């Protein structure tokens, strides 16, 4: 969710510097704390910044969620501004003239926005459902991780509070009554659409990666590697060979190479 105040401030003041050298990227602890849907978003933003060639300083905070202006992770500190979540961060980078999708025409950009929204709604809701509504995953993974940084009564109360929020959200969009099988079907339909769109291309829109590639990578890579009690989801994703290849390609180019340098 965009922070409107931040957005309005940006429109009025405008970014003064192209990309300051002291940009900080805040997210919860990766190994012990972060939940599946949150980490997909963190990974997507990091991939996007790597693709744009923008430098940032990764800061792990136990209370990143409370620090964020929108209440959701990840968020960036760029100069005097705090900017949270994928869409707003992408819009901010575009506004600074550093867009990686500037070569697209209007129609293509509209299509990209449509696919981004589809990934946001379907995959993000599916991740929320699996990690907060699915009883096994909630008690074995989500609750211990989300509560891990708090002492005892809070380690139960805060996950429960967040679970209520997630339930309200999923109830409003009709996902709460779905069964696990329905959720898997939704994921399949979304991946099918992405796979058909990608076809045999290197990236979704030609030779160069765009924010859509970053977002898809964030979700799929995380769903493949996140330790879940069963591997059904991983099996579903691996069926879509061109999407799995896309993940490998992006990981190789934007993570391994960067590390080696």
């Amino acid at each position: 969710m965009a922070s409107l105040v931040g957005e309005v401030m940006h429109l009025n003041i405008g970014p003064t510097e192209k990309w300051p050298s002291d940009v900080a990227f805040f997210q919860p602890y990766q190994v012990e704390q972060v939940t599946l849907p949150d980490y997909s978003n963190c990974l997507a933003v990091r991939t996007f910044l790597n693709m744009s060639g923008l430098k940032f300083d990764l800061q792990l905070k136990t209370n990143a969620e409370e620090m964020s202006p929108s209440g959701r992770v990840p968020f960036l500190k760029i100069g005097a501004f705090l900017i949270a979540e994928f869409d707003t961060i992408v819009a901010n980078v575009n506004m600074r003239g550093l867009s990686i999708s500037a070569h697209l025409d209007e129609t293509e950009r509209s299509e990209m926005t449509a696919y981004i929204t589809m990934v946001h709604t379907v995959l993000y809701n599916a991740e929320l459902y699996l990690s907060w509504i699915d009883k096994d995953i909630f008690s074995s993974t989500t609750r211990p991780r989300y509560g891990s940084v708090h002492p005892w009564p809070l380690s139960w109360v805060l996950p429960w509070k967040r679970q209520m929020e997630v339930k309200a959200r999923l109830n409003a969009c009709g996902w709460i009554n779905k069964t696990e099988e329905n959720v898997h079907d939704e994921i399949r339909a979304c991946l099918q659409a992405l796979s058909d769109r990608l076809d045999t291309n290197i990236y979704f829109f030609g030779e160069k990666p765009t924010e859509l590639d970053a977002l898809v990578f964030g979700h799929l890579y995380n769903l493949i590697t996140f330790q879940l009690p069963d591997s059904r989801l991983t099996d579903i994703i691996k069926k879509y060979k061109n999407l799995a290849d896309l993940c490998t390609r992006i990981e190789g180019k934007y993570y391994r190479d960067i590390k080696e340098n």
Partner: protein
Amino acid sequence: MTDDVLNLEVWKGNWDLPSVDNECLAVWAYCKFSGLPTKVQKSHQTNVFQSSLAKHNLPVLQHGSATESQLGNILSYLKNQGLGVDKNLSSKELADISAFSALIEEKLLPAYLHHWWVDTDTYVEITRPFYAKASPFPLNYFVPGRIQRAAKQHIYAPRTNDVINDEEVEMLVYKEAKECLNHLSYRLGENDFFFGDQPSSLDALVFGYVAPLLKAPLPNSQLANHVKGCPNLSGLCNRILNKYLPMSPEDLEEKRKRELEEMEKKQVDSLEFPNKRRNMILAALFALSSMIGYAFISGLVGVVIVDEGDYDGFSGVFGDDEGGGDDD
């Protein structure tokens, strides 16, 4: 299977549209695009009653033994049955339809719901009277409120949290909806339909949203104005209305009747004017008499004094007489 007739139940129409509901319009248009034999039933009292009991929302599609409600379910049912024009599209085009459907549902629907069900002017003047009239007694008291609550939950629940309040959410949903309309407009471009010469389910979906915004007499709506500012979207809407959903003779007849009724109502209103004055005078008289009555009963007015006066006078006379007797 293809020979079977589809039974479709929809909310009835208004403002020269065959139906006022976006999902009903979309399903109906899609059936017309596909040339499916469709028998349409406009909501009358019993089926609203039944669907309310079953917690279904219109549109409801009956085909053979299957019953499906709501747009998404109906479209996927038709797809599974191998019906509909979408089967002629390539897999990439189908992928585009999924993506744009998600975009519309996520970005345009919240503002659309807000516009019809939460915005006070539109809700009180247009939406509530229409849906109340279309529902039977006693459901007319509950149906609009129930849909409104569902709409509010759909708009606010996923967006409001500790740091963002309802007003900010409203600004945000309208901004996103306008962006979504722009994206649709860019995607449509100069084409007749989204995927060339043949309409698809995406055209039906967009038509469902755009047509009521264009046709309804809305006092002042940023969403409707924005649609009017995208000429290719309103062109698409009119093209579909003229070619696939022209007004039937019954609709025209009904429209004429409604206009006549409205004229008569206006005349009756002006005739009723003296009655209104008489009623006002009667009401004033009634209020006055009840106030006086209350004053009498509670003893604020000097009845007691009058009584006492009488009694005093009587006892006085009696007393005087007695007194007089004593004196004597």
